[in-house]
């Protein structure tokens, strides 16, 4: 029996288009724009100057602060600017701009590490920190920080999140099928420094090939008594951290708490693979898998993309547009963000580039709430989205607080189901921001 959590929705999957497409390497960008802040936390400080020639894997920026992540050159070339550039989030962020000179040599700092068995806990944490690895599911939280929970928390379970519950996206699916061994190595690398007792790879039951591939890779491990696959129901937001933990362990992360409070750490499939790559080759996080898809894309694909490649070049490599795009989304349709321009670069958090056709985008005008409670019955956090929305509309942030606005995970389920087409998540975010500001 597949496991799951209460609430949630079953949107149509739209994964068929790109599901069978093997990961292929995208062309290196002519010019890479690499923002110094692609993660949650303190931005990295530039370590290079305009005019410098950099090699693949060379650190471009880093920070002394704990919650931060390094960024690296994804191509070899000359630094032509260090200036604020537009990012997918719509803000301008200090970025290092590299002009590709075709040099494929890697930087001398990129060296393979000794055998995994010989790496100490500190080594592993250091490598992950140095490689600039962040959560690749979309949150972009520095992984190094995740791997060191407060000392009073005992970690028992590491979960690799392969649910990929967002419609359209298939990048994690392809990794599970094509690189299962790396997923397992990444999992083991996370288990070691956290002293976890078991490692679980969580996959939704609409991906039987992925389940088989991972199970096979586990069986081939010399010691696999503490590794297993957890099969989950296909439901959105099954891959949300709290809902994933609830489905697998039946435990609820306390309000305001961390997965570590219920002895878990969750990492995305892509993150596990990035860790495995860093540990084996020493190569920092300079590329990731991006699903380019949607009704407007001629040839939906899963691409291995260098960080800093503009969206436009990837769309070209996928056969271009079938119709003029109205909206371009970074990530999935439910939690992704719509980007301001097609020239923004791929960053560490870019799991997908989704360009829906006009038919797929049927934005209707909001109507009055008819109190149908569909949002209430679907909210995976058991909130009352309609009343939270009302509270925001009336500036009653005291009410939002008592209704649990801060427990909202912004999954978008309420907006999805609402027959009145209210922008509930947006309203709730307004309350959240207001409450966090006052804190």
């Amino acid at each position, binding site marked *: 029996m597949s496991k799951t959590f209460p609430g949630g*929705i079953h949107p149509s999957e739209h994964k068929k288009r790109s599901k069978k497409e093997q990961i292929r390497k995208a062309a290196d960008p002519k010019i890479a724009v690499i923002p110094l802040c692609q993660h949650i936390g303190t931005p990295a400080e530039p370590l290079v100057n305009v005019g410098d020639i950099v090699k693949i894997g060379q650190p471009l920026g880093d920070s002394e602060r704990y919650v931060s992540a390094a960024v690296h050159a994804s191509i070899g070339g000359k630094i032509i600017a260090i200036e604020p550039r537009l990012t997918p989030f719509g803000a301008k962020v200090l970025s290092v701009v590299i002009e590709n000179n075709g040099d494929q040599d890697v930087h001398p700092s990129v060296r393979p590490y000794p055998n995994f068995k010989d790496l100490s806990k500190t080594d592993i944490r250091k490598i992950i920190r140095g490689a600039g690895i962040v959560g690749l599911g979309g949150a972009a939280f520095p992984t190094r920080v995740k791997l060191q929970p407060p000392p009073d928390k005992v970690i028992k379970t590491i979960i690799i999140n392969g649910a990929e519950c967002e419609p359209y996206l298939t990048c994690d699916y392809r990794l599970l099928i094509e690189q299962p061994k790396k997923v397992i190595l990444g999992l083991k690398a996370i288990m070691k420094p956290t002293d976890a007792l078991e490692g679980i790879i969580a996959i939704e039951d609409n991906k039987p090939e992925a389940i088989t591939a991972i199970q096979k890779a586990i069986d081939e491990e010399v010691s696999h008594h503490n590794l297993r696959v957890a099969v989950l129901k296909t439901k959105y937001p099954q891959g949300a951290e709290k809902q994933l933990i609830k489905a697998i362990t039946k435990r609820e992360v306390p*309000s*305001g708490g961390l997965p570590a409070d219920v002895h878990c750490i969750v990492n995305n499939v892509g993150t596990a693979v990035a860790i495995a790559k860093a540990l084996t080759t020493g190569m920092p996080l300079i590329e990731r898998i991006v699903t380019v898809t949607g009704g407007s894309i001629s040839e939906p694909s899963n691409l291995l993309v260098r960080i800093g490649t503009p969206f436009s070049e990837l769309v070209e490599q996928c056969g271009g547009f079938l119709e003029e795009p109205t909206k371009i989304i970074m990530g999935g349709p439910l939690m992704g963000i719509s980007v301001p321009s097609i020239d923004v670069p791929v960053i560490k958090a870019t799991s997908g580039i989704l360009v829906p056709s006009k038919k797929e985008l049927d934005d209707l005008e909001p109507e009055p709430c*008819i109190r149908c409670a569909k949002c209430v019955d679907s909210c995976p956090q058991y909130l009352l989205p309609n009343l939270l929305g009302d509270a925001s509309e009336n500036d009653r942030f005291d009410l939002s607080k008592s209704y649990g606005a801060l427990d909202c995970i912004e999954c978008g389920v309420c907006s999805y189901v609402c027959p009145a087409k209210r922008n509930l998540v947006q309203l709730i975010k307004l309350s959240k921001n207001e409450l966090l500001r006052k804190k």
Partner: protein
Amino acid sequence: MKPLLVTPAPHMKSKDTNARVMLDVLIALLPATVAALFFFGFNAVIIILTGLISAWIFELIALKLKKAPVTRADLRSASITGLLLALIIAPSVPWWMVVVGTFIAIFIAKHAFGGLGHNIFNPALIGRAFMVASWPILMTAWLKPFDAIATATPLATVNPAPATYLQLFLGNVGGSMGETSALALLIGAAYLFYRQAIEWRLPFAYLGTVVVISLIFRVDPVFQLLSGGLMIGAFFMATDPVTTPVTKPGRLIFGIGCGIITMVLRMGAGYPEGVCYSILLMNATTPLLDRYARGRIFGYK
């Protein structure tokens, strides 16, 4: 290339719309409407048409006065009110009374409270309550199906069960037009469940409470379930989204409250038809239930 649209997530939404939700209710009321036409013939045609047409006219006037746009959802919501009102009154009622009832329902009970989504009381029930208060005799002049001879509703008779269960189930008894056939209403309710337009908590808490109280006080529970407006009340009135609680515990309490009040009125007050008033009374508690009968939030004990 023209500038890209930047909007907040989610970028994908369900096909559900307010208009579709309303359409489902209208579809679900079809069997009961057909039953009413079948049992009460020409009287039913007049009352249903009057209900629908006057509801549309009053809705259009109200929206015009408010300078609000007319949407499909508005018209369908008015249709539900007009049709429901027609189905919960006696088949002998003259057409002009229906017009007055619809006026009260749409103008006073709905739009005076702020219109779609804002009314506290179920408009159709307010319309009916007003009619009963104004013309008590005419409103309870029940007709025997098919032959239009005056009769009593089974609930009003001293000696219960003059009608057999089967008659009650099929609707071949005196009563309001659309509430007599439990079968037709159950078919409609099944459709609503299938479309996930209603949720089990409220109607089953309501019906369950009626059964439990019947058993405690030794009245025939089957008779209580099948007679009067209980079926239409539980599946079509007490599930009206606008006037009932959104919280899960609130829905349970609402249903139980309706059950208790219905039975108190039926058994204690010598008042045969408690459904209408029980739901209206509980409607008044909806804001309180939404406020205080909240469920547990994820991550709290």
